[in-house]
């Protein structure tokens, strides 16, 4: 087995190890989980270094490439008659998402240190889910991709339904059903592409060699984009996210908002845009419009929220809008921004949900107006929350700025097949969110953490424990490292983005607006 397979299988092996331990031994279970995810993080770090050395060398050569170049490929025939392979590998986009997931699951394990109800089942499901996520990010066979995709989405139902809070059954059902509708669209799209290609293969790279007829692209592209868009919180299919996040337990919210929602943006780029460039050209502006609504509407929606989790969920709707906006801008900066935003939002929102869990564990409330002055008793958590808030409003020095500036420039610079005036207008509308974000972030955080302590019980509360500090510290450090030294991250992904752009340029006839 190669590196990539290990990256996929390690969480699953950890889950198996957890299964072996008797349930009453819950302390051992969390140590096993932590060891497993910690090993995964180290393996990811090792892979990243190897990958970076290779990929950053390839940047000049990839500038004109139209085909994705994969590293550490492993391929085993699976169902020969249907053309399904176990085909996994890494490109820059996958690599960055793997880093994100590995960090989040490690931090999430630390943040779930105190789950005492059915610890065993909780970690088994969590680790299975994350196996699915890793599988999605590293498979280049559509069938395999879809299988892992479902593995990632389904455990969520149980995780929310059992360990959640509030109207958890309703939230779990709504989330699962909406995502299933998305999956159905994706499945239809996959089968359409499979048949239209005539290659009898699900190999994504080979499928991309076909020029699909424009009529097919016209209807398949929106199927893919909407299907993935549901998971990426595309307006108006985002409403599962506030309810789902609010009901989910801490680590699940972290993983869900931090990583799972990224599958949407990832799939939209990797499959929809990659396979169907002409459909992308046709629909780009439409989806840019929808995502502009996401960005602005989500940020205004967040202002009035009273529950910290709803607050963060609406902020996620706005920030995930940037991901799909970047994808819909259909150029190098847009794609790059989308990927950096996926990473940055993943870390940021993971941090938010971890902190909300920690604050909730102390105050037993998530209602913003019920809190006040908490910075005095929990300075560490307050500082981390502010760092997250500042990253979320795009303060330079954190990853969010790198992402948002790319996305804005991408939208404004446009491309040579979408209406430039419309693109510029939408971009300018989207930039309004940087002010609105500042408004809701500062209002929310000021109420929770600043001012005098409003409830005398709060005086007895304590600051973060060591595991909590490790968990949040890791996330904060990641945000700062990418924000201060963005060039490493860009070197990691850039070579793999050129093919997407070049395919758009090479496909079909160009509509000259410029």
């Amino acid at each position, binding site marked *: 087995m190669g590196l990539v397979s290990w990256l996929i299988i390690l969480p699953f092996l950890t889950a198996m190890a957890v299964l072996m331990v008797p349930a009453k031994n819950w302390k051992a279970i969390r140590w096993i989980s932590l060891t497993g995810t910690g090993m995964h993080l180290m393996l990811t770090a090792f892979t990243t270094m190897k990958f970076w050395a290779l990929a950053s060398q390839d940047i000049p050569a990839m500038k004109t490439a139209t085909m994705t170049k994969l590293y550490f490929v492993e391929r085993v025939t699976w169902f020969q008659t249907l053309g399904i392979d176990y085909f996994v590998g890494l490109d820059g986009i996958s690599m960055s998402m793997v880093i994100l997931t590995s960090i989040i699951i490690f931090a999430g394990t630390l943040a779930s240190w105190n789950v005492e109800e059915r610890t065993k089942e909780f970690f088994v499901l969590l680790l299975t889910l994350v196996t699915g996520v890793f599988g999605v990010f590293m498979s280049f066979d559509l069938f395999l991709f879809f299988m892992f995709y479902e593995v990632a989405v389904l455990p969520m139902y149980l995780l929310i339904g059992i360990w959640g809070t509030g109207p958890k059954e309703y939230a779990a059902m709504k989330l699962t059903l909406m995502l299933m509708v998305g999956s159905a669209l994706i499945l239809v799209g996959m089968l359409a592409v499979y048949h239209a290609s005539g290659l009898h293969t699900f190999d994504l790279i080979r499928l991309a060699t076909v020029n699909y007829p424009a009529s097919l692209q016209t209807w398949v592209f929106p199927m893919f984009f909407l299907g993935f868009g549901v998971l990426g919180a595309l307006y108006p299919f985002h*409403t599962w996210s506030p309810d789902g996040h609010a009901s989910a337990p801490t680590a699940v919210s972290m993983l869900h908002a931090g990583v799972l929602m990224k599958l949407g943006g990832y799939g939209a780029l990797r499959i929809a845009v990659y396979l169907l460039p002409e459909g992308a050209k046709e629909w780009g502006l439409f989806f840019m419009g929808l995502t502009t609504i996401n960005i602005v509407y989500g940020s205004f929606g967040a202002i009035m929220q009273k529950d910290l989790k709803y607050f963060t969920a609406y902020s996620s709707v706005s920030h995930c809008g940037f991901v799909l906006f970047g994808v819909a801008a259909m150029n190098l*900066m847009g794609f790059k921004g989308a990927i950096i935003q996926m990473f940055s939002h993943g870390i940021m929102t993971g941090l938010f949900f971890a902190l909300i869990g920690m604050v909730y564990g102390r105050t037993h409330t998530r209602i913003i107006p019920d809190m006040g002055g908490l910075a005095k008793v929990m300075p560490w958590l307050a500082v981390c929350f502010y760092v997250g808030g500042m990253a979320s409003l795009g*303060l*330079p020095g954190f990853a969010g700025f790198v992402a948002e500036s790319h996305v804005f420039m991408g939208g*404004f610079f446009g491309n040579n097949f979408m209406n430039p005036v419309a693109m510029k207008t939408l971009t300018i509308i989207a930039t309004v969110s940087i002010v609105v974000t500042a408004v809701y972030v*500062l209002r929310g955080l000021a109420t929770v953490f*600043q001012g005098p302590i409003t409830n005398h019980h709060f005086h007895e509360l304590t600051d973060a424990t060591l595991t909590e500090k490790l968990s949040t510290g890791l996330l904060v450090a990641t945000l700062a490292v990418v924000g201060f030294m963005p060039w490493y991250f860009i070197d990691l992904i850039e070579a793999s983005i050129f093919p997407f752009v070049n395919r758009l340029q090479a496909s079909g006839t160009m509509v000259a607006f410029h």
Partner: protein
Amino acid sequence: MHSEQSFILNNVWLIPAIPFLSFLTLGLLIRNFPKKLQDQLSGIVATLAVFSAAVLAYWLAWEYFHLFPAGVAKQALVPWSFEWLRYQENLAVNVGVLVDPISVLLMVVVTTVSSLVHLYSTGYMHGDPGYARYFTWLNLFTFSMLGLVVSPNILQMYVCWELVGASSFLLIGFYFEKPSAVSASKKAFIVTRFADLGFLLGVILLGYYGYNLFASVAPSLHASGLTNVQPFDFAFLTNPEVMNQFMGMSDTFMGMGVLTLSMVLIFMGAAGKSAMFPLHIWLPDAMEGPTPVSALIHAATMVVAGVYLVARMFPVFAASADALLVVMYVGAFTALFAAVIGCTQDDIKRVLAFSTLSQLGYMMFALGVSSMDHPLGYTASMFHLFTHAFFKALLFLGAGALIHAVHSNSIWDMGGLAKKMPVTHATVLIATLAIAGIYPLAGFFSKDEILVAALESGHTGVFAIGLLVAGITAFYMFRIYFVAFWGKPSHHSEHAHEAPISMLIPLIVLAIFTIGAGFVPMADLVSIGHSAGGHHGINWAVAGPSLFVAAAGISFAWFMYVAGGKQRSAALAGALGGVYTTIKQKFYFDEIYLFITKKIVFRFIATPIAWFDRNVVDGGVNLSGWLTRASGAALNSTQTGQVQTYGAWFVGGAVTVTLVLWIFFL
């Protein structure tokens, strides 16, 4: 380039890097120490770091102005840069340091004031529970400000611009348990953020058009020695050929050319940071921060970033006459508007805040009246920025000493402090005379030069405003001086005593600067465009009237507050009635803004959106769920389990299908 020999010219990056390292040391390392050790170390480490940066800045100034003495065209050097962020080919941000006259000038100002403020704070903040946190953030601010000053490109400027905004936010809200401080910090951040939206759009516009021009102008830029230049670089944007191309562009937006539009947007950012009308509302509230912070950030350094930005982009502003006119009018109006409000405030720091606004207005309109052919206003603006930093920092630190002594911000709680606090009194008097523009203190020279520039530019109205504001300034500054030092002692000020030595040293040093700064031959050091500069001397035709109005302002203040006491001023306020109240309430701008945000944005945009999302969009989702269940329930009744029913359905279906086929296909 001649810089090979000089250590400091090659290592300018050290100047921002030292405070940054100190920030990291304090924030990551020292904060984990025991409380007592933390407090002992943080003040010393932070202060030493900024002092060493100051020493390097003076060394740099010495080397740079010796390399390019008076009469020699001063080159802009970029001794160090690296690719920080690559957006795409030919569009990258090269973070680095730019050494040119104004960046050297600002480095000197920032490090001087910052190190004195650090020293002062070791006394002022002594015993505060957040002592270590305070110094951590103060260092963060100093780093960000120095990073802003040395930016060789507009994106680095934007990055540091936001960072100074964030550190200002942190320091205004330093007393985070105090609700007024919290809301002031939010207000400051959000208002400047709104302005930064303009800045960001301006940057994107310039980047976009710059990038489109890049291919065509790059060869000739390379030929002229500008290698490794990027569209965001100031060297690119202010290049004459690039500007010519920009002006030739036919794209317009709302009747404005691309260049004008970009510059107006950029100026919006500058106006936010420098608190120009109508984005001024955050600065008076920012006085909720600790007084040394007000001195450093909200008087001497951060608020001049807007002026600095306009100066940095001056050739481009000058290429667009309309944008420059906007700068001039906004600056002149702010100067007058803020001075009028300053006459009515009772909180000593707020009076100083309004005077800062007014002086920033001077610097702005000085830039607005100049041009590449007549750069006197440019020099004057930088000169005023330089002198103002010292005397305004001195005023704030002096005010801090007063507040420290009487534990109140109101000037009416002070009084009779001249004898009790002799050193503070003497230094504040020097600063007050300086801001009033009395010869031979620093403010006189720089203000005189601004007035001369305004007069020579032909904008007589602006000149008249400048002259009028000089008189008003003298009045309101001496109002607080007379009331605080000469007035009747109140029960607050009875037991006041002189500040500790660590606070007095900065006062004395700044007083020396305030006396001496006016004699710096600024025209030899800082200029732009075609004129070679040269010293202007004092134009008595302007200085005479300006001294006269200053004297008149001082006399009026004496007449009202020394000779007349409280009754006379109360009588005047009563006579003015509604006018006085309106001015005292700052023309109700805070209320207007609150109305717009709370009553309009929150109530008519945010709340409906939240409702719409929960009820309409999500309602749709729930509706589809309900429909599925309802249709399921309805179809349920068809599953009766009786063969007869199924048979009836089968026959009915078969008949329907046959009929349909028969109608449509036969």
